[in-house]
């Protein structure tokens, strides 16, 4: 029987700024201008400070469980910067705060959310960001559906959706990839491969050599990038976003990064991973290499750093103040927002939530009981 190759695929790896802060000038061409890099570095430092502050708040019992974003800032910022604010949509899980803030979500909303207040997910009008999504791997279908709507209405918008390496084991991930590819919707899938799904390492999560190759099954353009390299993430994201905007369909980006902190504040990663591994990745921290690059180019110095550290501290303080300054939510909220219009039964439950009475008819609940209007 003659045989032939029915399909052949390959996954390219992109790195532009290495961990020593050395830039590949050729690959960096037409990516980020010096001014952009300096701005984004300062932003990254602020995001890190805010993230560390959230951790401290949790330890001080002023915040509930919080998943730190530490170490993954380049993946969020590089991709977020490539998307158009107010045009494109971001559909997150919970480890890309920096991208959401960049697109207009007030920083303290994320704090409110992890402080147990759903109003942190009451995304302000005009901010094209969906609420954080805690169940793993389910929201990429929503991003696909949204992108599909943009395509149907011929709007030049793109959806970016973020998820981790563990999420690519979920069935919904594959359904989202298949729908996005089948209908060629403008959705960019950004996998932040941070090596750990709580305690299960990537190697135990899948037998695939890369996460990026999963997109080959859906004939989707795919690339693996150094996720701690702002330039590489930006370039891959920009190319994918603009191709999608031009009608070129979905794309996949695997950003290879590392979760420098515990899974959440309720986790202790020392139980399952070696200090050596963490230390090795500490050296690859996106902040360190970006600073090295800027200093090397004469764009940054110690005085600027000191001023920035002060500013970042102030930003974090302001965020805490804003989040803790929000008055406590009213219990009526849980009734008012279950449906657009409350059912009669919900009205009764709302009116009697603290004064249970036999029967709980509207009239007993002190409601104007006009049955014919129920």
């Amino acid at each position, binding site marked *: 029987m003659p045989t032939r190759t029915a399909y052949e695929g390959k996954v390219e790896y992109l790195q532009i700024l290495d961990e020593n802060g050395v830039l590949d000038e050729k690959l960096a061409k037409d990516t980020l201008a010096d001014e952009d890099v300096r701005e984004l570095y300062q932003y990254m430092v602020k995001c890190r400070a805010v993230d560390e502050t959230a951790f401290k708040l949790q330890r001080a019992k002023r915040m509930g469980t919080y998943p730190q974003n530490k170490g993954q800032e380049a993946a969020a910022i590089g991709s977020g910067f490539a998307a158009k604010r107010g045009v494109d*949509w971001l559909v997150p899980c919970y480890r890309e705060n920096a991208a959401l803030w960049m697109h207009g979500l007030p920083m303290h909303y994320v704090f409110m959310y992890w402080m147990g207040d*759903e*109003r942190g*997910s*009451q*995304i*302000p*009008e005009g901010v094209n960001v*969906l*609420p954080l999504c805690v*169940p793993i791997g*389910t*929201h990429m*279908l*929503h*991003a*696909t*559906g*949204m*992108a*599909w*709507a*943009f395509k*149907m*209405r011929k709007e030049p918008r793109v959806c970016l959706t973020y998820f981790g390496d563990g999420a690519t084991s979920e*069935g*919904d991930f594959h*359904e*989202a990839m*298949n*729908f996005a590819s*089948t*209908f060629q919707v403008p959705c960019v899938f950004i996998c932040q491969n941070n090596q750990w799904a709580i305690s299960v390492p990537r190697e135990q999560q899948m037998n695939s050599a890369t996460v990026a190759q999963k997109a080959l099954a859906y004939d989707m353009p795919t690339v693996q990038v150094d996720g701690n390299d702002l330039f590489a993430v930006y370039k891959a994201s920009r190319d994918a976003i603009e191709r999608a905007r031009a009608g070129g369909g979905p794309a996949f980006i695997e950003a290879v990064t590392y979760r420098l902190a515990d899974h959440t504040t309720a986790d202790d990663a020392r139980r399952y991973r070696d200090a050596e591994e963490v230390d090795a990745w500490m050296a690859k921290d996106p902040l360190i290499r970006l600073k090295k690059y800027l200093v090397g180019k004469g764009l940054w110095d110690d005085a600027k750093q000191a001023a920035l550290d002060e500013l970042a501290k102030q930003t974090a303080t302001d965020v805490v103040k804003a989040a803790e300054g929000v008055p406590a939510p009213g219990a009526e*909220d*849980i009734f008012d*927002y*279950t*449906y*657009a219009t409350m*059912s*009669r*039964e919900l009205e009764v439950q709302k009116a009697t939530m603290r004064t249970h009475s*036999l*029967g*709980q*008819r509207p009239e007993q609940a002190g409601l104007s009981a006009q*049955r014919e209007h*129920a």
Partner: protein
Amino acid sequence: MPRTEAMTKQGLTLVDAINEALYQEMERDERVICLGEDVGLNGGVFRVTEGLQKVFGPDRVIDTPLAESGIMGTAIGLAMAGMRPVPEIQFEGFLGPAYDQLVNHAARYRGRSRGAVTVPMTVRVPWGGGIHAPELHSDSPEAIYAHTPGLKVVIPSTPYDAKGLLIASIRDPDPVVFFEPKRVYRSHREAIPEELYEIPLGQAKVIAEGTDLTVISWGACVHTCNEAMDHFPEDVSVELIDLRTISPLDIDAIVQSVEKTGRCVIVHEAPKTAGFGAEIATIIQEHCFLNLKAPVQRVAGFDTMVPYYKLESQYLPDSKRVEEAVMQCLAY
């Protein structure tokens, strides 16, 4: 689709009525789209979406990959982005893979975002037994979804109600699960208005007025109850209520009727234990305790799986069982 001569003469079946509602809503509002397995070229396995793709094109009547969670999840995204999707899950037994999307996402988005993100979609699902279908094609899971805050659950029993309720569901700002009783998809014809009309969700219908006992049902079982009505002694006056929507529930219709009759029999296909009848019985004892002359009775499916079709008729409530329960309740 536009009416045929036969429909004009003989009336519309429940399938015709749903098809007409979809056709007219899609014509009226370009945000309305249908998506699901085999709904396009094939017109759906029950032909409910027959002809729609030809009129509205494959971008509005969409044959999707065979993936229920994918259908539900992308429909959520479409709805959040301003469309009015009407996804079809081919049989109620296949809601399982879509459960997470429906219950953990569609139902919760409004509440968890305090109204910032909403999911106006209508999930159409052929539902219930009685058509000699393969395994897992005959269940009645309505109580699961009525137990999910944020969802509405609608179950028409007649062509007239099916059209008006579907139009109201599509226009509703919240996610609606629209269960279609497949046993009566084509069993009855009815002359119904050709123009668009809405039946508000949450309003039961009194099918027959009576004074001695209230029978409450929904879906195909309403027809079973109607059949039983013909066999009661002439001096027995039974009130028959079709709930039409179980979430939101028309509590007032139930209470008003049972306050009057003092006796109630609830009839549904789903398993008895923790079926929606249990909720109704509780509401009755909460509100009509002093009016009751007999314990509330339930005629329901058994607490077993729905058997494959050789035993299906043994499982489904029939008019004899309804008759028996009514007579016992009256004699109490």
